[in-house]
């Protein structure tokens, strides 16, 4: 499906979605509350069939956090990017691990690196960081490690 068609289909699914111009792929911005329903639709709609979540990450914009999901379809080979804006002080978003199993691991990484709380995640624990790092989120822009910080 071409980008324009994708946009039209997504607008049909979620009229509130806004599109960001530029970039090679369709870039959708959705609200955290709408995201789970849209994700299910993207995965299950036979015309879209976004079955491959190949990248899941988060960006700290200092004022807010943005979850970035890169999706593609192994059937149609089209790609899209979904962005979900989160409150920086209380970042919460529904987990996608029931839709794409890979999200489970990636969300655990984002949880510890950015402190995003994934609701209904089956196993939200620290994955990479050692015990005792809960609440300190290294990839946030304001993170300061008093002991090991290296400034370049």
């Amino acid at each position, binding site marked *: 499906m071409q980008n324009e068609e994708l946009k039209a289909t997504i607008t049909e699914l979620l009229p509130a979605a806004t599109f960001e111009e530029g970039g090679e792929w369709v870039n959708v911005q959705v609200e955290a509350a709408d995201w789970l329903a849209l994700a299910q639709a993207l995965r299950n709609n036979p015309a879209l069939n976004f079955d491959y979540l190949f990248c899941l*990450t988060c*960006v700290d914009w200092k004022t807010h956090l943005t979850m970035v999901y*890169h999706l593609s379809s*192994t059937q149609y080979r089209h790609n899209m*990017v979904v962005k979900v804006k989160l409150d920086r002080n209380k970042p919460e978003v529904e987990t996608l691990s029931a839709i794409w199993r890979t999200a489970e691991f*990636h969300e655990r990484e984002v949880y510890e690196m950015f402190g995003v709380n994934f609701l209904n995640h089956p196993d939200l624990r620290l994955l990479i960081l050692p015990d005792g790092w809960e609440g300190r989120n290294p*990839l946030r822009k304001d993170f300061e490690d008093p002991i090991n910080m290296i400034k370049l």
Partner: protein
Amino acid sequence: MVEELGKTMEGDLIINVGPQHPATHGVLHLVITLNGETIKNVEPHLGYIHRSIEKMSESLTYRQFIYVTSRMDYLSAHINNHACALCVEKGLQVEVPARAQVIRVLMDELTRIASHELWWGAMAMDLGALTPFFYAFRERETINEIMEETCGARLTMNYMVPGGVLQDLHPDFQRKVKEFIQLYKRKIHEYDELVTGNIIFQNRMKGVGYLSPEDAISYGCSGPVTRGSGVRSDVRKIYPYEIYDKLEFDEVLETGCDSFARYLVRVREMEQSVRIIEQLIDNIPEGDYQAKTKAVLKLPKGEFYQRVETARGELGVYIVSEGGTTPYRIKYRSPGFSNLSVLNKIATGSKLGDLVAMMGTLDLVIPDIDR
């Protein structure tokens, strides 16, 4: 570990495989719940070699951060560099000279062969056969020497820079690569004779670690792991970059979905890489090896995503730029991280001895997972 001990049922045995364990090829830590010899649960604990390359890259310039990526998946350092260089070029909209493109693809494929050679040896070593390791290193060594001559390094090459490659090829490059292809074709049958055809090896591999195509996609697997389940996933074919769309090679697919299928995919992939090298080695165009770029690179505001096929699967580089000289945020989508997540799924219910075989066929490189 204490809280985990509390959770288990009577009669279960919990063992820690790693962080120092001969089969994990690095500092991977798996907490395995066993019932006798049968695996009930595998839980990876990561981070023993986490250097936070993503955070580090935020304070490095667009020329500098590429060097750090050689340390991620150290077995396909060229390809990591390549992905970053491509991503920066996408932002700068630089046209890479034809010579540089060919050199890059040649280096990528040599790296892929070297990586698969090492995997092949280590894989057999996991199953208790030590000899294949030395056979694999015989060929890998020649590749490393070729790399050393041109790039000055054997493991972390740092050879690909935005706009092309760091320096021109060594004068002996073509001759040495041709010699390597000769050697490879003369010796490759030994691989099949020593390992692939071995009845014990086949019994250990066949029907072990079943990964269905649906699971492979859902768990975000990529590379030979998905192709062993019959899912097309070769980025070189699906989203061609550089000159891959002009080259003739096959995407190796196996439909066994088990460890043996994944094994075969990698062995056959080496042959395809040799095919690519053969097409290019006599056709390296003359010209510049690097495009003219500014001394200080500045990417325009925006987001850039580039994916490439490393030896282990799909590597994605996601750069968020604010217009400065350093990236605002970088995310590396490493193939090993997603491939590891499937381990619990495929290992549950099999024997402890098979776990190492499965880990072998997932081809985990721990710095790639931890980053």
